[in-house]
């Protein structure tokens, strides 16, 4: 009995609360109440006389008001159930809207939800339902952006030319065009040639031969997509296949000239692009020239990344030309085949440039010829902050030139010279240059055959520079 009274008291409180919240709630509740109670107890006007409620003792021990769904909940559930046919969301009050959004199934077609729902929690559910790992912080903490970007990436990555209809991509475009800011395409599938699965062993050899000559080795054509995305700022592309395992064929990693042409035109049409990266795609001089020629005078491009390609001196010269005809701030050409002349061309561009902040030439073969040219360019340049020259076959003469540049230059902060055979003498020269420099904060001279003493001296100089910079930062803040 005591328990019953207790539960009743609870219901009374609930009723009271709902009364204060809204009349509809009360009416629906009282109606449901009365319909349930008519058999067992006299009808009570709870609103009129709350005190009498206390004496009511329910005979049905199982019954509890919490089991009965509210009419509003029923309505909302109905809305959720038929959301596909009749999406009602913006008309609801914020409270019910949140309720509906919390319970909407993630399987709803994008055509309905894309432009209607802006609630993050819904898209969070979508993302979490679709991908196991999702880090929203790299997407400006926007789950919706993340969902659409990854959705579009997925579609492109599994797009097979000739086999997949371009409509599958174009259909998504109007839904996601406002939300996509970055595209990280980590693979592009080549078109399926006639029966590549059968007798793989026999044809694997000749496939690589014929594949390069075949007319239809082109990948996804970016022209149909890029000019339709008004907010696109970043594009990462790899012309290759991910995780091919034992099905490896050379022609899976082919970047044809026509691909390059399409890509270049697409880039030219996309005026909002700020970052463009193309990795591991066998970009050689010719393709590099083509890409660069379309990127000349691009209004917004700030970062260009040609890592892990086959660019050599001619491509480097083209990139050097681009440097002074754009607003590039970061340039990465690590792991290419740039030699002395190419580096000289880059250095020439650098000496006139006023925008570039970071230059990465890791794992090229620029040698002393290019190293000296770059050092001389550093004397004139007043903007470059980061320079990576690791693994470039440079020796003592470069160290001499660099130490001279360090005396004159006062903007460079990070310098990486690791994996260059500077030698003991080179280290000494560099040490002397460092003693006159006050801006360099980091200088990597590992594996450069520099003697311990000079390395220690250089790190000491760097320490003082660091503390100075920190002090300057503090005073500024």
């Amino acid at each position, binding site marked *: 009995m005591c328990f019953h009274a207790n539960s009743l008291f609870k219901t009374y409180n609930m009723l009271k609360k709902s009364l204060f919240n809204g009349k509809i709630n009360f009416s629906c509740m009282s109606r449901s109440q009365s319909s349930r109670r008519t058999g067992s107890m006299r009808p009570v006007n709870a609103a009129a006389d709350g005190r009498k409620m206390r004496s009511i003792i329910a005979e049905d021990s199982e019954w509890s008001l919490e089991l009965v769904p509210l009419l509003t909940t029923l309505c909302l559930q109905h809305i959720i159930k038929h959301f596909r046919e009749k999406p009602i969301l913006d008309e609801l009050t914020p409270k019910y809207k949140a309720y509906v959004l919390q319970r909407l199934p993630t399987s709803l077609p994008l055509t309905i939800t894309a432009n209607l729902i802006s609630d993050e929690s819904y898209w969070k559910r979508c993302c979490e339902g679709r991908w196991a790992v999702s880090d929203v*912080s790299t997407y400006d903490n926007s789950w919706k952006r993340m969902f659409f970007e990854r959705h579009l990436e997925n579609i492109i990555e599994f797009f097979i030319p000739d086999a997949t209809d371009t409509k599958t991509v174009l259909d998504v475009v109007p839904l996601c065009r406002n939300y996509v800011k970055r595209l990280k395409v980590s693979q592009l599938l080549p078109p399926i040639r006639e029966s590549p699965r059968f007798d793989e062993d026999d044809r694997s050899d000749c496939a690589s031969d014929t594949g390069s000559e075949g007319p239809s080795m082109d990948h996804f054509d970016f022209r149909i997509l890029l000019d339709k995305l008004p907010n696109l700022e970043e594009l990462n592309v790899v012309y290759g296949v991910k995780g091919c395992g034992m099905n490896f064929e050379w022609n899976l990693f082919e970047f044809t000239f026509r691909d390059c042409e399409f890509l270049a035109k697409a880039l030219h049409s996309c005026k909002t692009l700020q970052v463009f990266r193309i990795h591991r795609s066998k970009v050689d001089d010719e393709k590099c020239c083509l890409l660069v020629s379309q990127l000349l005078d691009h209004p917004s491009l700030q970062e260009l990344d040609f890592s892990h390609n086959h660019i050599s001196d001619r491509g480097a010269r083209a990139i050097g030309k681009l440097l002074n005809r754009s607003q590039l701030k970061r340039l990465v050409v690590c792991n290419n085949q740039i030699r002395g002349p190419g580096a000289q061309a880059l250095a020439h561009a650098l000496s006139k440039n006023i925008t570039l902040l970071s230059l990465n030439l890791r794992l090229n073969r620029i040698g002393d010829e290019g190293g000296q040219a770059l050092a001389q360019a550093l004397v004139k340049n007043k903007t470059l902050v980061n320079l990576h020259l690791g693994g470039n*076959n440079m020796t003592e003469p470069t160290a001499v030139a660099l130490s001279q540049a360090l005396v004159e230059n006062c903007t460079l902060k990070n310098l*990486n010279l690791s994996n260059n055979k500077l030698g003991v003498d080179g280290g000494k020269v560099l040490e002397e240059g460092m003693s006159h420099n006050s801006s360099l904060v980091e200088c990597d001279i590992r594996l450069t055959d520099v003697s311990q003493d000079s390395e220690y001296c250089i790190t000491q100089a760097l320490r003082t520079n660091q503390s100075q910079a920190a002090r300057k930062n503090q005073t500024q803040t």
Partner: protein
Amino acid sequence: MLQPEPFAGEEADEPGPSVESKNQAERITARRLRIAARNETKTRQELGEDSQGKEDIQEETRKSQKEVEKSKRHMVKLQSDGLELVTNIQVAVDARESDRRTELEEACRLRRDKLENEAKSSQEKFEEITRKWTDAKMKQTPLDLRDAMNSQQQLCEQILGDKNKLISELQQELKASDDHYVKDLKRQAKDIDLLIERMEEQISSLKKSYREDLQQIENSFDEERRTLLTKHRKKWGHQMKEQSEKELRNMMQGLSLLEEHEDLLQKLRVWKAEEYNTDKIRMDTEVQNLRKKLQEVKFNCHLNEEKLDYKYEVLKKREEENAILKSHLKRKIIRMQDVLNNLKSKCASQEKQLKTEEQSLRNDYTRIKQQYIDMQKKARHFAALDAERFEKLWLINEDEVKALAHRVLETDRIIHEQQLGLAWVSPPLPFMERSGPIEHKTLRTASQAAADTLQEETRGDLVEESEGLGDTASGVNRRTVKRILELLCDELGFLVESKLLKLVSHLEKNDQSLIKLDAIFSAIGIESEKDVYTMAEFLMNYRQHEETTNNSDFIHHNDLLVALKEFTAQYCRPHGVQASQKSSVLGLIMRDDSEDAAHWESIANVIPESKLRLWSALDTAINKYHTVLTERAELLVETQNVQQQNTELRQLLHLYTTSKVTV
């Protein structure tokens, strides 16, 4: 996959760059993370400071700050060390890769050399073979030929063997490089494992050290807080005690002061009560007096009230009247306003009407003026005509008269010669020689002369020629006269009446000056043309007098007035302007007929009085003679008649005498 996750590591974590990446991005992110961590610790430290800062004393915060600084330094060192440890692998791999590349290049170069050498040697051998072919062709004997063939075959086999060897070498190299590749892959996998291991180690160690540091910092802060708390508590208690003592002292002081004041109050009360009694008595008398006064005042007040009521009534009535009057006046004003408006509109309309009228009148005036000019022209024409007719008439009459005179003279002569028998002497007859009307040399008026001179320009050369004669006569050049006149016109404007000027203002310039000159001349007293010329001459002379001083060719307008004054003094004449000459302004030449009567008289009196008397005597004598003659004639007739009667009667008698006989 290259993209690191900058927020994954938080403050305690060693940055976790992705395993596959071996480029700078990893390092950059590591650095970025370190900075973030540093910032984090800094903010935390600041927060800690804030929470305690209110109570802390500077010295003690310095201690905790020191702790924080120490831990920060420690962490930075730890991080940089860890970073170096981790990136060492990457650098090593890079170094290996670059070594591999140099090796590869070297191997490539060697291979290329080898291939080139091989190609060269095989080329030589091939050339030898081809040379030997020509030798073989020269060979005659089959044995020799066989030998040659064998040797050729051997050479070919040698070449083939070389090539095969090379191929097998290359294949071996390929295999070796394949092995190398696999080995590399394995080593890289190992490296990556190592990298991951080191990173995890780093993370855990960093975590641990962070935690320790945090603990230490917290401890130091706790300690600081505790010491601070006890210190403050002590201070607080001390101050509380002081406060209570002070309050007690204050209370005692207050109590003593209270007693003093009570005494003082009592004294004051007594004194005041006495004062009060005396005052009360005085006041009572005053009250009575005042009551009396009040009665009086009330009476006066009542009186005044009634007076004022009456006045008020009067004023009210007046006000009413005033209101009525005001309304009357207002109405009147309105009416007047209406009238005024009406008058205004009427005035405006009238003005307009008058303007139109004036316009029409002006038009009329111009028209009439035109008509007048026409009339003048006509009159002049008619005058000319009249003059002509007059001249003709004159001539006819004169002829007639002359004929009559002639007859009379002839008669006189006949009378003298025949009747009187005297010698006849003809009287002097001057008019007989003359014919035509008597011409008078009329004097032109001054204004006419002026008009002529002024219009000289317009008339042109013809006039000038004709006037040339006049110039010599007057002795003054007409031009100078004209200039003088213009000067006069300009300078003596004050002589002209202002009304005239106003009237004249809309005329042509020439007319204007003419009229002005007229007025001026009449004022000065110049009437005839002659006068004008004399004046001009005088002025010229005057100028010549002054020439010594004034070099200009003409009289200076400043001197003009003086000169004129002199002139008027010399030549001034009493006014006797003939009214008849006024009409001459019109340009009509009136004939002077004063001498005409004498002329005619002289013609009529061609026979003198004595002769007339003679003639009358003669007439009477002749008349008498005539009567006698007529009487004689009558008598002659009578005698004739009587003679005739006599004859008749004789006849009758004869007849009668005859007849009586018969009977």
